[in-house]
């Protein structure tokens, strides 16, 4: 593998999200908060979701991790904001399928992460934020 292959992993848009994360921080007030970590490597994320009338009205994250996990969190929060909860979950399913190497259409920056599927050791980095989102939504549903 040459650095050309690395370029398929570390796309410019990924590096941009890593360096300039969107939606990094905390949401004021009483919102859904999920902590998740990847125990094999130490990456951790805290995801906060504000859900109103079945719509994700705000999403923010905080945490520490590699370029893939943090950029994925940045992109995920960007993508699900304003979406219906069920659409966010469907997107998460699409994302998992993309990690398995399937062709999936993503309109936004997320498409840049498709290269991760060729680096099996890094797939868990990319899916961390999505798993946190799923967990949060399911916890909310159970409480309702």
């Amino acid at each position: 593998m040459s650095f050309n292959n690395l370029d398929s992993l570390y796309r410019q848009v990924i590096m941009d999200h890593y360096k300039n994360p969107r939606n990094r921080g905390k949401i004021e007030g009483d919102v859904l908060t999920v902590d998740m970590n990847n125990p094999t490597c130490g990456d951790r994320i805290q995801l906060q979701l504000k859900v109103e009338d079945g719509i994700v009205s705000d999403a923010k994250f905080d945490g520490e991790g590699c370029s893939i996990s943090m950029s994925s969190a940045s992109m995920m929060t960007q993508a699900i904001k304003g979406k219906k909860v069920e659409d966010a979950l469907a997107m998460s399913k699409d994302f998992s399928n993309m990690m398995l190497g399937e062709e999936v259409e993503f309109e936004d920056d997320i498409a840049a992460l498709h290269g991760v599927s060729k680096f099996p050791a890094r797939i868990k980095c990319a899916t961390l934020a999505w798993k946190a989102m799923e967990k949060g939504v399911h916890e909310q549903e159970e409480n309702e």
Partner: protein
Amino acid sequence: MDVKSIRQQFPILNQEINGHPLVYLDSSATAQKPLSVIEAVDAYYREDNANVHRGVHTLGSRATDKYEGAREKVRRFIHAKSSAEVIFTRGTTTAINTVAYGYARQILKEGDEIVITPMEHHSNIIPWQQAAKATGATLKYIPLEEDGTLSLDAVRETITKQTKLVAVAHVSNVLGTINPVKEIATIAHENGAVILLDGAQGAPHMKVDVQELDCDFYAFSGHKMGAPTGIGVLYGKRALLEQMEPVEFGGEMIDFVNLYDSTWKELPWKFEGGTPIIAGAIGLGAAIDFLNEIGMDAITAHEEKLAHYAMDKLSTIDGISIYGPKERAALVTFNLDDVHPHDVATVLDAEGIAVRAGHHCAQPLMKWLDVTATARASFYLYNTEEDVDKLVEGLLKTKEYFGDVF
């Protein structure tokens, strides 16, 4: 030591990864296996496979001879008084847990202390956390010096007359610190405590003499010294092992079984319930033969030279942070600028270089270092200065690659 001919005995090293010759720098996680070990396991299954200690038939006695022969090789390797003091386990973790369950939990009571250090691997922390919780004993840590070493003053201050058990790594798997374990054992004994040494990063790399160290327990894993995974050793002083109850009950470890009561076999078999790890033990015996042929002193000298060379070369890289003392075992844990260790490891892998990235099963130590993760290059007898050069080149490329980002 002729590293070139040693390398030829490790078939796995002769391959390309991502278009580059493999540079394997993750031996602290697990070491590669010499052909003689692979062949010994293969030959056992092809020619001698049978259960041990029960068959009257020829294969049964051949398997038993090989299995017990491996125990004798381990005894000589660590210079135990008797092979009754050598218990085969699944690895270091099982060995430590055997002491935690079979010894610590039996003797500890409220007010007693267990003393460990912040540089321990999780496998030498969690068994003691659990034993402390179960018995009401207190878990205490010997504070580290700024460079990641242990001072004997700090050891003396932490171990008290209430301390019943001290558990310390022989060598740190992150910092590379080689601990003054003989001196720590003396201090433990002066206070009436027993001492367990986690030898996972010790036994593969240096001569270990359990009688000279005067440790009460010494635990290590076969797979970090060229043997298969799934085999390890618990050494214990006979008097302590005699006093201990078995941890696993079942076949192989019993003497007489009545309807409501049973008695145990003598040492070491009372700790080896169930069909043992026969092929693994034979593989460990072959690994010990292999290491002895080269000589443990020669291996230690080679690794010391490599450690110095690696420290000199790596410290010239702008933006690198190296953790641990200057004098160390042959491993270097580091971070490079703000590039996350996963990203470092991925770029190095693209160059055929295998390093470990993450918390190295030492989360308390990561907290002490104030980092969430690190990268680690670890060396063994088959590594060369050229491997270090390739690592340095790879790290410079990593910097270049991520240079635009940071």
